[in-house]
């Protein structure tokens, strides 16, 4: 049985039935960063607090990665022959922060700026022991 290993610690709550991204909120400026950070890019304050981000938001912009990225840094194991394009977008989570993420769809016709999106956790590669490495992605909310 394979296990699902997050690509990095403290990016999102895992394991979880309703995972959330983890950011840092700076109380003085109201700025929220993702992932967590040690100083506020607006005021340089260092009193940030760990915060769980909203699970749903609206698509702010998007693209589709049409070619196999170079490895490194890409850790996917596709070859030019097996590679399938993947969506990438920015999702605005309330008025808090706009996060960059992979998208679960790579169909241009399914993506529209302003549409509702929700967080999911997806496998994107495997480690040497065959375990799934998982990352966060946003999926269109099913009506």
């Amino acid at each position, binding site marked *: 049985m394979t296990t699902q290993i997050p690509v*990095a610690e403290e990016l999102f709550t895992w394991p979880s039935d309703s995972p959330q991204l983890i950011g840092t909120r700076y109380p003085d400026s109201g*700025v929220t960063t993702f*992932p967590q950070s040690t100083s506020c890019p607006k005021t340089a304050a260092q009193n940030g607090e760990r915060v769980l981000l909203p699970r749903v938001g609206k698509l702010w*912009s*998007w*693209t589709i990665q049409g070619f196999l990225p170079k490895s490194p840094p*890409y850790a996917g194991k596709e070859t030019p022959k097996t590679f399938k394009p993947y969506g*990438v977008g920015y999702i605005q989570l309330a008025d808090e*922060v706009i996060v960059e993420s992979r998208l679960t769809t790579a169909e241009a016709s399914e993506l529209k700026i302003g549409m509702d999106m929700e967080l999911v956790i997806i496998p994107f590669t495997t480690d040497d022991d065959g375990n799934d490495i998982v990352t966060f992605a946003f999926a269109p909310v099913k009506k």
Partner: protein
Amino acid sequence: MAEDVAIIGIGMHPFGRHDNTGMEQGAYAAREALKDAGCDWSDVNYAFGGSSAAGNADTMVSALGLTGLPFINVANGCATGGSALISAYNAINAGAADVCMAIGFDKHPKGAFDPDPADFGLGKWYGDTGLMLTTQFFGMKIQRYMDQYGISASTLAKVAVKNFHNGSLNENAWRRKPMTEDEVLNALMLSNPLTQYMFCSPGEGGVALILARGDIAKKFQKKPVYLRSAVLRSRPFGSFEVFNSWLSPDRGNSPSVGAAAAAFKMAGMGPSEMDIAQVQDTESGAEIMHMAECGFCEDGEQEDLIQSGATNLDGRLPINTDGGCLANGEPVGASGLRQVYESALQLREDAGAHQVPKPIKTAFTHVYGAPGISACTVLSR
């Protein structure tokens, strides 16, 4: 004060793919610039230069002559050339030198850049999961801009068509084959909405400029071009840049807005007084957005301007008259200096087949790059 710095010599190694090293291309450009200025290497009393992937610029003294001059290496990403130029400009204004060289050259491997997330303050996960690609940023910035301001895919393609046309007339350009709008639109989609021919490619080349105090310029060059301003800015809070894992909903301006405004202010001239402009066209959408960021039009006006040919060589405001990054490729260290080289060539009316037909007195250049830097200049005859 600002009119006291002149460009007295310009030299370029053709852009493209070549067998010689990046450093040799730089040295070639330096010799051409010295020849153009009618001066000797020993007349140069300060030099600034850099490359991102082709070695330390100051190594070049062994090819140009060991005169003992101070030579400072500059490393500032896509603004390396622009930063070398600003350093030379400041050295002359400060009285530290009266003849200065600014040089940039590069030689990159084929294909998209493959930067290390750690160099940009990002976790390894960012590269692992396939987000560490500049092309995605460009796709997403123009995607939202098109949605907000009504820019069409046809206009994206027309920018590429124009730049490849200008490149076809420029003997130093890399891509010299004109393309049709359909060819650009129907090419491989690299990062929606941008196709293969809407993106520039990393390449090779070198550019050197010899600058001098304005009052001695004519001793060397009968057609000096004056550098009215040279400004560099890094990103303000709320800008949208490559490799941002998050953005603030409280949106701000791009560094290009601040750099261009400061360059115009320093020059005492405005965007409407510019006769030609070279703006960073890493991809077609960038040229469109930078037109507004630099103050040449309002957001959304590009649609009519580009569709009506206003930015063509024979238009009201010719943009990227040498074919820009799209036709020349992007040797990172040299790219910003190429824009100034082209401006000087046009202002001297020496651009040959790609000389704009109208008489010109002023020119503007704008370079932009990771992780959110912009360098602008205003030039005049």
